[in-house]
Each structure stands twice: as structure tokens, then as C-alpha cells.
């Protein structure tokens, strides 16, 4: 534990001379800041390589103990390089490419990265063992919010900006024949082979360049890389996605791919459906667990080789290399080549080992087995590999630990037909052998994809245009050569201590303590200690955790097994999952007019409707005294054709329909099988076998589905065709005492006189020169009104003509709010507002409408039972005794003993009556007109209201029947 100031590395490690495989552009320099200090890097640098080149060694503080940490893998998985970049937290600094002007900061250190007071956590380390939070903060529960605030200040994480970001996230679909996950030599060869066999290929690589380990290899590897790169580029059938990750494999090869580094797009989620998947994820180098293994300066061999060969960065001055394989040997050679003093090479294959790394703020010496100490600022470990088998596990394989090769290994034989594995994840080999393995696997993948394509092409088609030829599958499966994996020493931990999970700060001792406490299954151990639950998601830690557990329990590693490799392979941002926010909206044909005339928009379901045009009360008065027009296009409309329509209507509505004459309109209410009110509306008979059925605006889709459900399942023998025509008509309600005069100025061939076109009738006519308009004499407002359904493309024309023709009549457009007031004055209930999901028909004021003497209809048994048992709530009118108080909707109505007896369902100030009026659901013993009840507002205030008839204005209906 170090709480003393940690300075920059005393070493002068920095940028090396040009390296053969380097990916930086030395001709350009990028300025960026590190905790406010201006530094330079080159295009191609990662944030971490630029910092290391600038001599920075401590890049972060650890999650729990705030220990200084530096690079280890120098890759996407590096747990020691999570940064805040501008407003973006938790940026993987060893992967993110440097950009000009990046504001890079260490996360959650105080007062500084070098001197972090939170490192006092280390002093309390013995108290921060696994389960510490659970055991300590569980009681008293009421204090948890306070605990939470304090704990948050000690968590090593970045901060998000409260200001919504401007980043654009995107989504697309893809249907490639083959997805190759992993762009190393085997993956590239597989992609090329599949493309040459005629397949379309997505080649997905997590790194910024294709090539895998070839990139940091010697001249032979670089030559192979150039050859493979050229081959990939030469195949137009390959789409390369670098800086992208195949996150999961779901059924039928449904593969989410997160694509980064796109111009103008933060991330794009590609939803790919591949005919075959080739998993060529390579191998991940595994860290070694020993005392001091988290000190800055302890690097994996691949981390060193990346820094040296890709970014031309010197990782240290004096090195000790612990090697158990040729990659460790190559790292030692690389270091020597660039002038790093390789003080000792410890060869684990000869039984040599290390005990611990020592130092303050970084490695200063390495203690070897036998006790010798070697002064060094760099300790390189090369102790083995982990096969990242997540996609294979998700495909049904369950890799088993192989002690000979010291890794969990997949079994291609257990994979489904549409998933293959290639390259290092299967076994090792020379570059040529890996390429040959990938090539054969790619050809086999294309062969299997072609088989799927032929199956699809076999679907009968009436298309005369010939389809493109489908590649012929090979007569026989491709023989994929074996990759022979050499023996490897089992090196997980030397038992001296150190951290098993550097993301979560879980040490060897803590794991052992947890196992002693009884958490001796790998799944329990994970959950109790949080080991493997950090940003690396176990890629570096799981196998070491399994080894520790196996050792402690005396079981084999194969018996111990791993935790489940669930989607996603790598953490995915919520932005990538959300994609581009795009909620469909619907507009009426008159929307441009509404916008031009200052309508305040109301979002009603998907519809954008005018709520009002500035003064809803004045709009109400205009309708009551003159004439108003409202856009009611969203009213659901179903065109019904066929001889059996009356049977259908009899079944769906609670009232009777058998004798509706042509030209007549009837109001109906539908209930579901449970008797709950489903929808209401009017239906008119336009012809002998032709009806137009209207529904509520929000219920249009539900009713269509409801009707089709009955027709297709209960009565397929009935001849009825239902076609949704909601938007085939622009619907305009003309309401008010002057409505007849106004409509009469524009209608042709129709006598509007009451005796010729009475209330609840329907006619077709020409309006404003537009033929085939449907006019209904109905009204929701209680006024004389005509609902005109205009062929939609002419809706705007008719609306404009109505406004022009009614200017002298004082015609006023009115919105949804005025309509709500008007209908409340008239006592018309709205399904879904004055009813809810429990309101059965008799509670909705429909007692006169429900015809229990009909032989059958949807909901009849429940309604009959409701009627029989009685005692149900009633829909009543209510008026606060103080006429100026408008109770909020959903206010409760109290019984005399203070219990809840009902609720206010609709409530407005009535411009017509000059007082507040309401509708409500009320228990029957309080529902008698004249009863005074207590209405409790949401703020607790009580007011007195009197029960009235639901119809507040014109209860006789004289105004609408003129």
C-alpha cells in the first residue's frame, strides 16, 4: 500500500526508433492533456501507448484499494488503463486511439493520481474482504442510502455528464453467408477462402487492424500479414469490420456486432443473421498470480510486444522475463533488440520461477525462486493462454480443461452444423498451419452456407426473373487439418499472494477466505467475491480463479469447471443497444394547417394532434354558440364488407344490430369476455353488405385485432372482410348551432334538413367538390354536428374550404381539450378514462344498452353475473359545492367513514356553466343524485361535491337533434 506521492517513472522510457510493424504515423503529432498537462502522441497511438511513451507509468488507481496500476496487457482488456476522456467515463485507454485535443484524466482519484488519499483503503484491507459490504451495511436498512453515498465516493469509476450527449448511435441489419469472428491469420484465411467459394463474408476484428499476433511478430509474420491483408482486400465479398466485436451468438446464428470508430457515429449495432459462423478468436494471454503482480511495470509478454512493435514504446529499462512458452522468449528477444537491459530470463519450462515483485509505485526488484533479488523496473510474464470460447459456449459447446496444454479447449465436434472454430482457439501451429486451418474452415463454412442458401432457394416462387445462381456445395465436407497443441506448464499462481482479479481488486487471500467460508463452487465464488465481474468479464481472471478454487478444494480444474460465458462477449453501451431514437408518429392530412395556425401539439398514442389553438375555453364557447371544426382523423375506422356483418356486430357489441337500416347509424359498446368495457363507437350501414365501423382513436388497432380474432378463430365460416381505413378518410367534425348552415354551403346533392338527414343517420355526398365523402349526423359535443369523412388526400382542401366558407359564421377550429370539455358537459364517457381495466359494462353507465336478452355476445356471461349480483360502482356526475374548485382527475371519493368509495375520472371547468363539473365512479349507496360526498385531492385537501346526473348540459338532447 502506498499513500506517499508517486511521481512519474524515474526511467526515461519513451519512444523507440522506427519498428518494422509499427502502426503510428510519426509524421504527425497529436496534442492531448493528461490530468491537465499537455502531452504529445502520434496518430495510431492508443491513449495508453502515448502516455507510456511520455514516461507515464502509473495510469490509474485500483477499484477498491486505490493501488497504483499501470499497463499489463496493453490491449482492450487492460484493467490498468480505464480513463475519463472528456465527458466519457471508463474509456479503455489501451485500446482507444488517441485524437487531437483529447482531455484524458485518471478516474476518481483525490486529490490526484499521484497522491490519492483514498489509498487509505489499503490500510483497511483486512476489513474489505469479500462480503464486507453485505455483512457491514445490511443493517439498519434505513441507513443504506447514506452508506451508498459514502461508498460511491470510494469507487473507482468515471463520471457521466448530466447533459445529454450528442453522440449518434446507429443500427443496421446484415445477412452474410459467413461471419468470421476474429481477424487473425486463421480468421483472415477463413474469410478469404469463404469469399473465394462465393460466400458473402463479414470479418469482425476487435483490434484496429487485422492480423492478430502477426502484427507484433518478426519479418516472417509481417510478410504473412501483408499477403493476407492483400488477399482480404482483393475479395469484394468480404466486409471488414475492425474495432468491432461479435458480442454473442444466439439461435440460428443471430449475432450482434458492435462496430466502433465509424465516421460521425459513436457506435453501430449490426444485427447479423449468418448462415455460418466461424469463431477465430485466437488466444488471450493469462496473467500470473503472485505477490506484487499488480505493480506498475508487471506486463504480459503480449503487452510488451504490442508496445514495442506496434507503438514503438519502450516499456522499461531493465527487465526480468518469466517465460513458459515461445512468446515469452520472443518478448525477451524484442526487449533486447530495442536496448532494454534483460537482467534475467526465468524459464518456467526448466522449473525456474519467481516469488514476488517488490517496489513502491512500481516494480523495483523481482524476487526469484531461491531468494535472489534482481533490480528491475519491468517484469514480463508469459505463463499461458486462455481460449476465449464464449461464442462456442453460447453455441452449445462446453470446453473442458486440458491439463496437458493448461487451458480449457473447445471440441468442434460438439458444435452445431452452422458454427465452426478456426485457429488458435482450437490449437496452435505455425503461421502456415494456422492459415491452412483457417482456409479449410472457411471453405467448409462456405460449403455449409451454400447448403442453407440452396434450401432457401428451393422455396417455390412465381417470379419469372431468374434468381442469381446459388453456389454449389462441395460434394464432400472439406477436410480441416489438425492443429497440434504442444504441452504447456500449468502456471496460475505461485501461492505468494497478489491479485487474481485486478478489475475488482480481488486477491488470492480473499478468494481463499471466501472458499473457507463455504463459497466453494465457481458460480458462488464469483458472486460472493465479484471476481471476474469487472470490465474484462473474466477473460483474464476466470481460469486463475478456477485454479485457485480447484487447489483449495482438492478437485481437478475439469471438475471445478468455469462460470457461464454469457452474452455479451464484451460490455456494450446502452447507446449501441438503443440505436437511433426513432418513435413512429402519425399525422392527419390537416397537420400542415394546424402547424401554420399555432396548434399546441398533443401526443396521443402515436398521433400528433392539436390540443388547442391558444384558448380551449373560447373554443368551447364557439362551438356552443356558433360553429367549430375539429380534426378527428385518428378515430378508428373499419370498412366491413359481406353478408354476415350483422351476425358479427351482434356478437361483438352488447346491444342489438340485426335491424339497422341502410343509411342509419347506431352507437355500440364492446366488452371483452370478462365484461370489461373494451371500446365504443358508432357504426353506419352504407349499403346492403357494406358498413363503416368507428372505434376510439386509441382502440383502433385493438378492435381490428379483436374482430379478426373472432372471425378467424370462432367464425371462419362467416363472410365478412374487415379492412382498416382509419387514414383513408380525413375526419372533420363540424359542431355548433351554425354547423348545418356551414356544411350546407359546401355540400352537393344532399338535403341537410332534419327530416331528410336526421340525427344518427349517414349519407354519402360531395363536399367542397370532393366526391365520396361520408357524412354522419352524430355528435360527441352535444351540439348539432356533422362528422365528415373525406377521402384523405382531400382532407386539407375540405378543411380549408370549411374555414373559408364559415368565416362569417365565426367558424373556429377547436382541439382535443375543447372536445374533452364539451363531451364532459354532455356526460359522454371516454373508454379508458372514465372506465379502466376493471370497469364492467354496468359500471360504465351502459345499463340501458346492454341487452342480456340477446342469445349471445362477447362478455355476456360476465355481464349477466354483474347484473345479477348488483352492488357495482356507478358512473355519476359530480359538482363541487364550491364551483371554482376543479378536483384533479384521479382524486379519491370518500365514504362517510373515510374509506375510499370512488374516484374522479374526468374533471374540468365548464365554460358553458361557469363552474367545475366532473364524472366519477362511485359506490352505489352514494350514487343517488343529490348525495354529498367528500373528494380528497392528491395533496390531501378535502372538498365537498354533490352527485348529479352525468349529463351537465342539455340533458334532453335538444341541441343535437335539431
Amino acid at each position: 500500500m502506498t499513500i506517499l506521492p508517486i511521481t512519474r517513472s524515474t526511467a526515461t522510457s519513451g519512444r523507440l526508433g522506427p519498428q518494422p510493424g509499427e502502426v503510428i504515423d510519426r509524421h504527425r503529432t497529436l496534442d492531448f492533456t493528461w490530468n491537465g498537462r499537455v502531452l504529445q502522441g502520434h496518430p495510431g497511438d492508443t491513449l495508453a501507448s502515448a502516455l507510456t511513451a511520455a514516461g507515464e507509468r502509473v495510469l490509474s488507481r485500483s477499484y477498491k484499494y486505490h493501488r497504483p496500476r499501470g499497463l499489463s496487457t496493453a490491449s482492450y482488456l487492460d484493467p490498468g488503463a480505464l480513463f475519463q476522456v472528456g465527458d466519457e467515463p471508463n474509456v479503455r485507454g489501451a485500446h482507444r486511439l488517441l485524437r487531437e485535443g483529447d482531455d484524458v484524466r485518471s478516474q476518481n482519484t483525490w486529490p490526484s493520481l499521484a497522491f490519492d488519499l483514498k489509498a487509505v483503503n489499503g490500510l483497511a484491507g483486512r476489513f474489505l474482504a469479500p462480503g464486507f459490504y453485505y455483512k457491514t451495511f445490511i443493517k439498519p436498512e434505513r441507513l443504506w442510502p447514506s452508506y451508498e453515498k459514502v461508498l460511491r465516493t470510494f469507487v473507482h469509476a468515471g463520471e457521466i455528464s448530466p447533459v445529454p450527449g450528442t453522440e449518434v448511435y446507429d443500427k443496421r441489419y446484415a445477412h452474410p453467408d459467413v461471419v468470421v469472428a476474429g481477424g487473425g491469420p486463421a480468421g483472415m484465411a477463413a474469410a478469404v477462402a469463404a469469399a473465394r467459394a462465393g460466400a458473402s463474408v463479414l470479418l469482425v476484428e476487435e483490434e484496429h487492424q487485422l492480423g492478430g499476433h502477426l502484427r507484433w511478430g518478426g519479418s516472417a509474420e509481417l510478410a504473412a500479414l501483408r499477403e493476407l491483408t492483400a488477399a482480404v482486400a482483393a475479395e469484394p465479398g468480404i466486409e471488414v469490420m475492425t474495432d468491432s466485436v461479435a458480442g454473442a451468438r444466439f439461435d440460428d446464428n443471430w449475432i450482434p456486432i458492435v462496430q466502433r470508430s465509424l465516421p460521425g457515429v459513436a457506435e453501430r449495432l449490426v444485427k447479423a443473421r449468418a448462415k455460418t459462423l466461424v469463431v477465430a478468436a485466437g488466444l488471450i494471454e493469462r496473467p500470473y498470480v503472485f505477490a506484487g503482480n499488480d505493480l506498475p511495470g508487471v506486463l504480459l509478454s503480449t503487452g510488451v510486444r504490442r508496445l514495442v512493435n506496434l507503438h514503438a514504446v519502450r516499456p522499461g529499462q531493465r527487465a526480468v522475463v518469466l517465460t513458459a512458452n515461445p512468446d515469452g522468449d520472443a518478448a525477451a528477444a524484442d526487449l533486447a533488440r530495442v536496448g532494454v537491459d534483460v537482467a534475467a530470463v526465468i524459464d518456467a519450462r526448466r522449473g525456474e520461477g519467481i516469488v514476488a515483485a517488490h517496489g513502491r509505485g512500481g516494480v523495483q526488484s523481482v524476487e526469484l525462486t531461491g531468494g535472489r533479488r534482481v533490480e528491475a523496473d519491468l517484469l514480463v510474464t508469459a505463463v499461458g493462454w486462455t481460449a476465449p470460447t464464449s461464442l462456442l459456449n453460447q453455441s452449445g459447446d462446453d470446453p473442458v480443461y486440458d491439463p496437458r496444454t493448461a487451458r480449457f479447449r473447445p471440441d468442434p465436434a460438439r458444435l452445431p452444423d452452422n458454427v465452426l472454430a478456426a485457429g488458435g482457439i482450437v490449437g496452435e501451429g505455425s503461421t502456415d498451419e494456422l492459415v491452412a486451418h483457417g482456409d479449410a474452415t472457411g471453405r467448409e463454412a462456405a460449403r455449409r452456407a451454400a447448403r442453407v442458401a440452396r434450401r432457401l432457394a428451393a422455396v417455390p416462387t412465381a417470379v419469372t426473373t431468374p434468381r442469381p445462381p446459388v453456389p454449389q456445395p462441395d460434394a464432400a465436407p472439406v477436410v480441416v487439418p489438425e492443429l497440434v497443441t504442444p504441452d504447456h506448464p500449468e502456471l496460475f499462481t505461485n501461492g505468494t499472494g497478489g491479485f487474481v482479479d485486478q478489475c475488482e481488486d480481488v486477491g488470492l487471500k480473499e478468494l481463499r477466505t471466501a472458499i473457507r467460508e463455504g463459497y466453494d463452487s465457481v458460480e458462488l465464488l464469483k458472486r460472493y467475491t465479484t471476481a471476474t465481474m469487472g470490465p474484462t468479464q473474466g477473460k483474464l481472471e476466470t481460469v486463475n480463479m478456477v485454479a485457485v478454487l480447484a487447489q483449495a478444494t482438492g478437485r481437478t480444474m475439469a471438475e471445478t469447471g468455469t462460470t457461464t460465458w454469457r452474452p455479451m462477449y464484451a460490455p456494450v453501451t446502452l447507446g449501441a443497444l438503443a440505436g437511433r431514437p426513432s418513435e413512429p408518429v402519425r399525422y392527419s392530412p390537416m397537420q400542415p394547417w394546424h402547424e401554420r395556425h399555432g396548434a399546441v401539439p398533443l401526443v396521443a398514442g402515436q398521433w400528433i394532434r392539436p390540443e388547442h389553438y391558444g384558448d380551449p375555453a373560447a373554443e368551447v364557447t364557439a362551438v356552443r354558440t356558433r360553429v367549430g371544426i375539429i380534426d378527428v382523423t385518428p378515430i378508428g375506422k373499419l370498412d366491413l364488407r359481406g353478408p354476415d356483418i350483422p351476425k358479427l356486430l351482434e356478437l361483438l357489441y352488447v346491444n342489438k344490430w340485426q335491424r339497422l337500416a341502410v343509411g342509419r347509424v347506431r352507437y355500440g359498446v364492446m366488452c371483452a369476455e370478462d365484461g370489461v368495457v373494451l371500446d365504443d363507437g358508432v357504426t353506419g350501414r352504407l349499403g346492403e353488405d357494406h358498413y363503416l365501423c368507428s372505434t376510439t382513436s386509441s382502440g383502433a388497432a385493438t378492435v381490428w385485432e379483436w374482430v379478426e380474432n373472432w372471425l378467424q378463430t370462432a367464425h371462419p365460416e362467416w363472410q365478412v372482410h374487415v379492412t382498416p381505413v382509419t387514414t383513408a378518410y380525413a375526419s372533420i367534425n363540424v359542431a355548433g348551432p351554425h354547423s348545418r348552415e356551414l356544411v350546407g354551403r359546401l355540400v352537393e346533392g344532399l338535403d341537410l334538413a332534419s327530416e331528410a338527414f336526421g340525427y344518427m343517420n349517414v349519407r354519402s355526398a360531395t363536399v367542397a367538390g370532393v366526391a365520396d365523402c361520408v357524412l354522419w349526423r352524430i355528435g360527441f359535443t352535444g351540439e348539432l354536428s356533422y362528422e365528415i369523412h373525406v377521402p384523405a388526400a382531400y382532407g386539407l382542401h375540405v378543411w380549408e374550404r370549411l374555414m373559408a366558407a364559415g368565416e362569417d359564421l365565426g367558424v373556429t377550429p377547436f382541439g382535443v381539450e375543447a372536445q374533452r370539455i364539451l363531451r364532459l358537459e354532455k356526460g359522454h364517457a371516454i373508454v379508458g378514462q372514465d372506465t379502466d381495466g376493471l370497469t364492467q359494462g354496468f359500471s360504465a353507465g351502459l345499463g340501458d344498452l346492454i341487452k342480456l336478452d340477446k342469445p349471445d355476445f362477447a362478455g355476456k356471461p360476465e355481464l349477466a353475473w354483474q347484473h345479477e349480483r348488483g352492488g357495482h360502482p356507478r358512473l355519476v356526475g359530480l359538482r363541487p359545492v364550491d364551483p371554482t374548485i376543479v378536483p384533479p382527475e384521479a382524486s379519491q371519493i370518500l365514504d362517510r367513514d373515510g374509506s375510499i368509495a370512488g374516484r374522479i375520472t374526468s374533471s374540468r371547468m365548464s365554460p358553458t356553466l361557469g363552474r367545475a363539473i366532473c364524472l366519477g365512479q362511485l359506490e352505489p349507496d352514494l350514487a343517488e343524485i343529490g348525495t354529498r360526498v367528500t373528494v380528497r385531492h392528491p395533496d390531501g385537501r378535502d372538498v365537498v361535491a354533490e352527485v348529479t346526473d352525468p349529463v351537465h348540459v342539455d340533458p334532453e338532447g335538444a341541441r343535437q337533434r335539431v
Partner: protein
Amino acid sequence: MSETSEEPIARSPIAPQAPVVRFGWEISARAARGDLSLSDETPLAKVAVRAPFRGAAADALGVGFGRTTRTDVDGVGVGDVLVVGSGPGEWLVLAAPGRGPDLAAALTRRLGSSGEFVSVIDLTHGRALVRLAGRAAPQVLAKVCGIDLSDSVTPDGAALRTTVARVVTDVVRDDRGGPPSSVGPSYLLHVERSSGQFLAGALLDAGAEFGLETGTFVGLAGRDT
């Protein structure tokens, strides 16, 4: 357009660019300069037919579910009528602007003689129709539609119902009707009218990176002209 014009003008739900009136419809006069275009084809006559999945009416229509054919319906126009098998027992019949009533009447006559339960409805005003055409059209569509648009799965003449930008849409591949100035696939996208503006906006947004432009009305003759 004037707010007091006495002559009825039919308007699409999709706001036109540089509007002009042709065949009684307000259409966009702006032509696309590039290969990739989105044109508003809402003025086309659109007639829906319901009939048994198999039978005399289906035979008379000449095409089954999931495919299209060009035909002539009692003089409405040889090759100018596109019959789309849009659903099981559902057909969408497209023709030149203004031909909706004639087309519906002709279909009623032709199919009425089958003796089957058939209904014919002119939905010209109830639906919006756009055409997305050009070499990159499948890439644009792949950003808002989950269907495999490869030639082997969705060839010219294919028809299907799916969601495009979360809107229920009939997708009809009709390369022959594509704009004469473009090559590559051409898709007719048919939605209920009120979603037309949203769909067009979503497509233009998806197509921005490919240089998608709005084009003028094409009709059905397209590359035949």
C-alpha cells in the same frame, strides 16, 4: 397552395419539395441528380382485394402471396397495372394516378364472376407509397428493416409485409418500375397514410450516408420509358 382554392387538390402525406400539381395531385418537382432516390408514389391508384387464398379469383389475379406480376385489368393498361400478393388472401393492385375507381370497378367485374367471396376497396387515399431505388437501396433499407434483401431471398418481384423503421410496411421489389435514371434494386414501400411522412423521414435519415435524395414521382412505367 392557397388556403381558399376551390379546385380540390389531392395531397400526399409526404411534404413535397418544390410542389407542382399534376394529374390533380400535388407532387414534388425536384428530380434526384444521383442514382439513389426516394420518390413519393402516393398518387398511384391503390386497390385492395380480399379473396380466398386459392381459387378462381386468385387465379384471375395471376399471382400468389409474396410475389408480383404486371398485368392488364380490363383496359386499365397493359403492363401498367402491378398486382402484388401482399398477404395470405390479400392483394394490392397498383395503377396510374386517377385510375382507382376504374380499376376497382374492373376488378369487381372480373373477380365477381368467380362466385367466391371477394371484396375490392379503393385505398388510394388510405395509404402512402414511396419508391426507394438505386444501387445502395438495399443498404439504406438494411438500416431500418430486418429482412434479408439479397437477390437470392428478395429478388425482383418479391413482396412481403414487415416493419420498416418500426412501421408496418408492404415491401415490394419492383426493379422494372425504378426511375429511368437509376440502376439497381427498386423497392415500393406501402404503409398506412398517416405514417407516410415519418417513414419518408426515417428513410432519408438512414440514407444520408449513402447520398439518398428525394426524387419526383416516377409511376409504374419507370425503366420502360
